[in-house]
Structure formats: structure tokens, C-alpha cells
């Protein structure tokens, strides 16, 4: 915290399924209620219960762009959280822990990863100490971190006695206790905690009362032990209705308001929550204009299929019948979708595929982030299959991009792959009504014909490569995955074949021309800067934050964000990179996929790359560090490694 600017960073850790998720959500609500902007992400193992997970939150009166390390507050009510994040806390920060855990030793924590145990053991043995919680507390205190031990067992018993709730049924409240104590130290008034807990558990009154009691008891204990410091002033965003939503939810919302009527999917992390949110809202009351059009309910068919092949296949069938259709998946599922993507290109079927990237190859790390599917998305499908690939940099972009993707799919009768990732999927942000404004976009379904057409040619050769599309059921016709003539009838004739290939080529040129270069790529910052960062997707906000930070240190850097990766904005990218002395790509993949693409399209070599390979989100400190290293040493590749 400096001056009037609030910039608070918090980690709340705990075993998966043990209430960490709720505590994280409550923290987001507390600070939103206080009038601040928030961003919070959930990091978790591919596990149902017991493995370490944590919520990482940033609170600011400005727009917090990216997560920041180190944090000012660590809520670690179990030994694993404390030992895992012992190096993540800033000097002057506060750590809340359970006094009952002080004797616990990293080496005896069953869920902790073996390698982490070894690292912690080594770190403490270098200090001549055992890897225990009490030694970690000692270390933190030496570093100038304040610590607050809560006797959680005792406080839980007290909560049980006061509320009559069974001890076993309120065990999860330890997270609320730890969080509430930390919030007290940070200067948050108790009524805000109550309001946030109510907002979280409002629908479950049986849980509500014990949790509020637990919070109060923890705050009372903290006050007694620690006293009360300065009250955190209210932020500038108080007094209005705000939204807190994850990237998964934002994309689901955009699909719903953007006219989706059919989504088929197969469960896969981190895409499932998008489909679930659509499913939750598949039958909505509508008023206003839709009501005047004779519609009182907005229904969306959402169907879980037998695999990802069927997920995209059904969506394609629905699209052919006239529905606005999409599917959602991640890398492994996207691999299965390849043959149908190829069919969607050949048969010219509109389809949006939301591709939530996660760490691969193969099953990789299912619950962690990455940007390794860029080239897979662009080159998916066999046999010359150009398609649109768009990548969103943040939640607001994801909202508009989703609607845009559905429009493009129908207008150009093509697959559109919307690149997102696990980081966006499970990151929540606070939003205002004007951030998500559907009146800024229109619904465009392209050249559609309803009703019988004389001598209908589904694949009529046109100058722009786009043929009038009639949904099935109005005309006899053939939609074809095989090469065909204008009617869709199978044809191996060399003239037909060439004409159809060239029609599809022209269509892709039309797409490229119809989307302005400035919509395909955005240059952020000083156009005259000597160093240009190129990147795509969810790295955006960390890079913007780093560019500011570097600017304050006198290092002039600008940032070229590539929004549409296919068709590639080669003129704009060429122009910008032609001016730069140093070009640095920032990407979370090992093979430099964006650098490859830039070189392939523009001939400009990207000489430097900052890579994030540990499957954790990109932090602004990563980018600051990487750029400085590159400027100082001229090194080609910097691997940045922050995150727990």
C-alpha cells in the first residue's frame, strides 16, 4: 500500500474440497462490497478432495490487471498451505495460521508433492532447521512478516457451543475464520464480512449462521490478540450494482445473450463450468423486446454427449438445421474434434468452438494453464482447412469475442475457434454494467435464406466465396463433407474440384478483408518504444501491468497484442515489428508458437522469447524480469518461473 492507492494481494490456501473456494469467493465479495476492483484466481490440483489448492486475489482501487507476487496477506489454516507459500509473502505482510499446526512437518504431509517436500526440506536444512510450521513462522518473522496464530480447534468448539451446530459439520469454517482474522488485520470492518458471507451462503441458512458466528469469533480473537489498526477506507467503486464472474461464466453469458440456442459438450477441465453455467440458465424468463416478438422464455438445448466427437458433431447438425450452435472443450477434446473441424470447412458449416487451453501435451496437468494449442487450433483438421482463430486477452474481451465469434461463424459459414485458457476460466473479476454491453454488438447471421428456393445451390460459386445458406428442411439439397459441385452433389471432376478449392480460398480472403487489421491486432503503449512485446491471449493484463512498471523504471516497451491469429494481421504486425529494435514474444509454450507464426507470416524474426512453462499464470513480475534480462544480456530465451 502506498499513499492513497490500495493494492492488496492475498493468498488463501487449504485442502481441496475443504472450503477454500468459499473463502476465496467471500474475500472477493468483501472487497467488491468495500468499493474496490478485484481479480482472483483459483489454483487447484486434479483431485476431488485433500490436495492443496489456493485462491490468489488482488484488490485495487484501479483496475487490477494481473495477479501480483509477493502478497501482503497469507491465510494458511493448514500446514501445507503455510509451507507451500512461505516464500510468497512480502515484508510487512500478515500471515494467519493455526497454532494447532505448528508441530507439523512438511515431510509427513501426505498430500504434498514429493518434490516440494524435498525443496522445503533443503531450504530449512540450509538454516539448520526442520521443515515444520513453527520454523516457517520463525522464518517469516525474521523476514519482517507479521504472524497471527489462531487456536482454531478452540475457536471451532466455541462456535459449535454458541450455535449448536455439530463440530463435524462446521469443520470447513476454519477457512472463514482464517480469512476473517486476516481481513480484520487489513482493516476491513466486520459488517462487510457478514454481508459477504450472507451473499455467499444466503441460499443455505443452515450454513449461514455458524459461518457468521465463526467469523465473529475469529475477529474477536484477532482484535484481542492483535488490536485494531487503521480501517481500510472505502474504495471508489461503492454504491452501484457490480458483477463478479469467472471467464467461464462470462463466455457462457455472452453465448446466452448472443443468441446461442444449442450447446453440446463433453466434460473436460477447464471448459465444463462454461457449459454448466449455460445449463443453469438454459430456460430464462425474458421481457421487453423479445416478449413483443412473442417469446416469453429463452430456451437453449444443452446436452452432454458421449465424447467430444459427438459434441461437435451434434452442434454441427444443429447448426445445419438453423440453430446458433457451439461446443466447448480443452486440448484433449479438441484433438478428438479434428475430423469434424475439417468437415465444417469442407461442408461450410458455422460452428464456434471455445477452446479452453490447459497444460499439455496429452493429459498434461488438467487443472493448470498454458498456451500450447495455438498452432493446433490454427492447423486443426486435415486437408487445407483455414478457419478463424481469435484469442481473448481478458474477461471483457472474452465477452465481446464470444458474440463476435458466433456472428463470424454464421456470416462466413466457417468454424471459429475461440482461444481461452484455464487462467481465464477460473479467474474472477469485478465488472460494471457498462463493461458487458450487448447493445454495442449486433447479431449478424449472414446470407441466410428461409423457405424454398428454386434450383437451390448450397455451394453456389460466388465472388466473395460465400453461398446463400438455407437451413435443412426447406429445400432438397446435399450438405457434403466430400468434394462436391454447386448443388452439394459429390464430384471428383477436376474442374469442380478446383473451383470449390478456390471458392473456399476466396472465402477466407473475404474473411481476412472483412475484419479490419486494427481489430486483429492492437498496439498498446508508445509506438516509438524500442522494445516491442508480442503476445496473445490471457497474458495481456500481466504484460500491460509490466509495461507500466518498466516505464516507471525508464524502460520503454510497447505491446502488440494479436487478437485474431487466423487470418493473421500480417500488414499491421509487419509494420510494428519493422520499427522495433528488439522484439520479444511472451507465451506459455515451449516451442515459441507465436514467434513461429509471426515469422511465417511476416518474415520478421522474433529474436527473444519469454516463456512461462510451469503451468502457472503469468505474473507481471515475470514479464518485468524477462524484459530486463533480455535488454541486459541479449539472451534469446528467458524462462520465467513464478507461482506455487
Amino acid at each position: 500500500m502506498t499513499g492513497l492507492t490500495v493494492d492488496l494481494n492475498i493468498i488463501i490456501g487449504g485442502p481441496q474440497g475443504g472450503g477454500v473456494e468459499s473463502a476465496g469467493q467471500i474475500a472477493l465479495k468483501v472487497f467488491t462490497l468495500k468499493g474496490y476492483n478485484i481479480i482472483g484466481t483459483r489454483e487447484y490440483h486434479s483431485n476431488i478432495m485433500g490436495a492443496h489448492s489456493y485462491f490468489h486475489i488482488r484488490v485495487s482501487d484501479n483496475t487490477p490487471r494481473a495477479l501480483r507476487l509477493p502478497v501482503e496477506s497469507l491465510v494458511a489454516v493448514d500446514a501445507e498451505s503455510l509451507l507451500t507459500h512461505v516464500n510468497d509473502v512480502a515484508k510487512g505482510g500478515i500471515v494467519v495460521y493455526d497454532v494447532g499446526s505448528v508441530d507439523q512437518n512438511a515431510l509427513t504431509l501426505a498430500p504434498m508433492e514429493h518434490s516440494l517436500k524435498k525443496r522445503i526440506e533443503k531450504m530449512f536444512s540450509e538454516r539448520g532447521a526442520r521443515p515444520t510450521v513453527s520454523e516457517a513462522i520463525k522464518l517469516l518473522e525474521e523476514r519482517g512478516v507479521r504472524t497471527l496464530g489462531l487456536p482454531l480447534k478452540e475457536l471451532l468448539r466455541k462456535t459449535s457451543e454458541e450455535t449448536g451446530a455439530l463440530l463435524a459439520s462446521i469443520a470447513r469454517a476454519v477457512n472463514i475464520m482464517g480469512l476473517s482474522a486476516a481481513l480484520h488485520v487489513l482493516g476491513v470492518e466486520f459488517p462487510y464480512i457478514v454481508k459477504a458471507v450472507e451473499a455467499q451462503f444466503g441460499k443455505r441458512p443452515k450454513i449461514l449462521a455458524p459461518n457468521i458466528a465463526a467469523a465473529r469469533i475469529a475477529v474477536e480473537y484477532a482484535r484481542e490478540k492483535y488490536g485494531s489498526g487503521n480501517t481500510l477506507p472505502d474504495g471508489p467503486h461503492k454504491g452501484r450494482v457490480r458483477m463478479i464472474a469467472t471467464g467461464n461464466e462470462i463466455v457462457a453469458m455472452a453465448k446466452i445473450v448472443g443468441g446461442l440456442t444449442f450447446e453440446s459438450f463433453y466434460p473436460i477441465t477447464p471448459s465444463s463450468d462454461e457449459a454448466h453455467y449455460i445449463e443453469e440458465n438454459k430456460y430464462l424468463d425474458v421481457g421487453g423486446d423479445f416478449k413483443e416478438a412473442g417469446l416469453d422464455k429463452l430456451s437453449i438445448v444443452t446436452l452432454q454427449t458421449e465424447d467430444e466427437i459427438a459434441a461437435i458433431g451434434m452442434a454441427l447438425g444443429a447448426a445445419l438445421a438453423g440453430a446458433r450452435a457451439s461446443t466447448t472443450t480443452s486440448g484433449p477434446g479438441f484433438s478428438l474434434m479434428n475430423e469434424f473441424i475439417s468437415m465444417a470447412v469442407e461442408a461450410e458449416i458455422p460452428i464456434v468452438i471455445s477452446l479452453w487451453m490447459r497444460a499439455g501435451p496429452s493429459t498434461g496437468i488438467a487443472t493448470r494453464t498454458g498456451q500450447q494449442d495455438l498452432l493446433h487450433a490454427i492447423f486443426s483438421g486435415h486437408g487445407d482447412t483455414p478457419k478463424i482463430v481469435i484469442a481473448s486477452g481478458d474477461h471483457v474481451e472474452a465477452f465481446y469475442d464470444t458474440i463476435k465469434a458466433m456472428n463470424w461463424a454464421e456470416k462466413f459459414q466457417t468454424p471459429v475457434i475461440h482461444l481461452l485458457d484455464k487462467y481465464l476460466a477460473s479467474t474472477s473479476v469485478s465488472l460494471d454494467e457498462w463493461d458487458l454491453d450487448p447493445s454495442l454488438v449486433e447479431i449478424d447471421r449472414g446470407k441466410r435464406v428461409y423457405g424454398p428456393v428454386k434450383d437451390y445451390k448450397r455451394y453456389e460459386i460466388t465472388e466473395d466465396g460465400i453461398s446463400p445458406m438455407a437451413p435443412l428442411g426447406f429445400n432438397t439439397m446435399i450438405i457434403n463433407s466430400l468434394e462436391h459441385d454447386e448443388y452439394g452433389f459429390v464430384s471428383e471432376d477436376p474442374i469442380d474440384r478446383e473451383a470449390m478449392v478456390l471458392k473456399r480460398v476466396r472465402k477466407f480472403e473475404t474473411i481476412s478483408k472483412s475484419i479490419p487489421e486494427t481489430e486483429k491486432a492492437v498496439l498498446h503503449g508508445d509506438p516509438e518504444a524500442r522494445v516491442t512485446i508480442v503476445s496473445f491471449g490471457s497474458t495481456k493484463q500481466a504484460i500491460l501491468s509490466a509495461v507500466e512498471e518498466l516505464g516507471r523504471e525508464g524502460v520503454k516497451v510497447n505491446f502488440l497484442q494479436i487478437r485474431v491469429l487466423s487470418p493473421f494481421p500480417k500488414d499491421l504486425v509487419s509494420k510494428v515489428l519493422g520499427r522495433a529494435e528488439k522484439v520479444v514474444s511472451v507465451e506459455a509454450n515451449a516451442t515459441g508458437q507465436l514467434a513461429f507464426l509471426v515469422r511465417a507470416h511476416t518474415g520478421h524474426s522474433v529474436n527473444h522469447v519469454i516463456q512461462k512453462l510451469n503451468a502457472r499464470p503469468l505474473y507481471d513480475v515475470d514479464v518485468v524480469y524477462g524484459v530486463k534480462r533480455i535488454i541486459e544480456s541479449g539472451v534469446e530465451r528467458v524462462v520465467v518461473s513464478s507461482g506455487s
Partner: protein
Amino acid sequence: MARRWLDYKTGAWVQWCPGCGDFGILNAIYGALAELDIDPARLVVVGGIGCSSRSVYYIKGSNVHTVHGRAIPVASGIKLANPELTVIVTGGDGDLLGIGGNHFTALGRRNIDIAIFIYDNAVYGLTKGQAGPTLPLWVKTKALTHPNIQGNVNPLLLAFAAGYTFIARGYAYHVNQLRGLVKAAILHKGSAVVDILQPCPTYNDFMTQEWYEKRIYYLSDEDPSWDPVIRSPEDVKVKAPRILEKMLETGDRIPLGVFLQDLTKETMEERLDKVMPGYLKTPPAKRPIDVKGRIPLHPFRIFKDKLLET
């Protein structure tokens, strides 16, 4: 004036080998469509890949030629998006039960109102006669270099286990009887499958016309009281043992006809209309998504569970 079978015939050259069982099946489908007087523009024939899947070119309809094994998901999406259309799937045993087996079983669970016609010749014709999933163990056709070392799937039992509500078996050269089965399958409300035995005179020199005709017989001919219709949950208990016994009958005698018609299960379309009343009236293909290009919705007025008054 009612339509005639010729009204469903396209001008396309039918490129099957002389004597192919597919001709009989195609004629039976033409006849059934004519008897049902279905508007070709409202008919959707969905094919996978293979000789039989090319039926999409020979039957007048608003048709889709998909990729190998994937006709069922595409057909399902079409039907759920617009339940007013008549949707049928034509494919081979390799397409529907081999590469597409996962989709075949999933359709039974859903009971979407689609009719599946398996052109079952036990071989992969277009790729030169490899063993299909219905070719019996140890059979060596002339196209195989060695006897088949994989066993065969029983399409009827598979359909039964998956939950299909109409299960029948026909024979390609008995066009009249087959026409009746095709018609009943299309009329049936729910997922219907007709396994159609057919010789492949080019590649399957084992299961020939002569081989089949020595073995096949009709259930209702043998037993005039044969009644495969399930009208109540109790009916299943009473009739299932006999139905399964007949489905299991293979080898020297191969029964034909309707093995099961279950009237007790609701279709997926009915389930959706139950969950979302009005679905059948404005299904996904017909629901307005905009008002003159504008979006008359705002997330802050819809997704109230995500809002917080500060």
C-alpha cells in the same frame, strides 16, 4: 395427390455393384417414404462413409453426407434443433457399429426420434472387403487373406442393451417385407434401428444370397401370436425373455421382423419439452435470437446470481 416412390428417386447414377443388397434396401426406403407421403424437403437423410452411406445421393431429401462413423451425432443435432423434420440415418455395419459404435449406443440412451438403417453385409466394401464388425469369427471371405480372428457383435442385443425402443431385422432382397419394417421404424416415436442383412456379392462370398435364404424366417410366420410391443413396464418382464431368446438365435436359423417396440419410454424431444416447456414450439432452429439485429438482453438483468449491490 399422394407421392409415389419415383418422387424420392434422384437423377443420380446409383454406383453400387450389380446384385448388391443396397438396391433392395433403397427400393424399400423409396416405397416406405411414398406410403408415408413425406415431403422430401422435410426429410433429412444422414449418411456416414461407405457404399450404403451414399444413399444420401439417391434419396431426395435435405440430406447430409458426414464423415466416417459420425452420422448419428449430426443426425441427433439436426433432430433436436428442429424436431419437425423426419431424420433417418443410412450406414453400414462398419460405419455404425465399428467406428461409430460409441454413438450407436449413446443414441439408444437418448431415444431421439431417429430411424437408423444398418446396411449389414459384414464387410467394408469401399475399402475392398475387410472384415466388418458383424462378420462371424473364423470366417474367411475371398477378400481376406486369413480367417477372421475377431468375433462379431450382435446388433440387436447391442441396441436392446443401449435402450433403443424399436428394434427390427430385415433382409435386403425381401423388398416388400423390408418396406414395412422401414415404414414402422420411421413411424415409431423414438430411436429405431433396423438391422438389414444383405449379401455383398463382390466381397462376401460366405454370407451369400443362398446362405441367407437357407436360414432366414419371419418371427410372425413361425409364431402368429408374436407380439413385440411393450405397452407397460410389466410387459417388459413378461416379453423380454422371449425377445432376448430370439435376438440370440443365430447360426442355422436367423429370425426377421420386429423384435421390440417399446411404447413406454418418452423421446428426448419430449424430455426437453418437459424440462423447457415450449421447446417443441420454438426449438433451437426456430427460436428468434435477436430483434432486428439487436440483442434485447443485458447480463446484469439476467444473471442476478452474480450481482452484488455495493
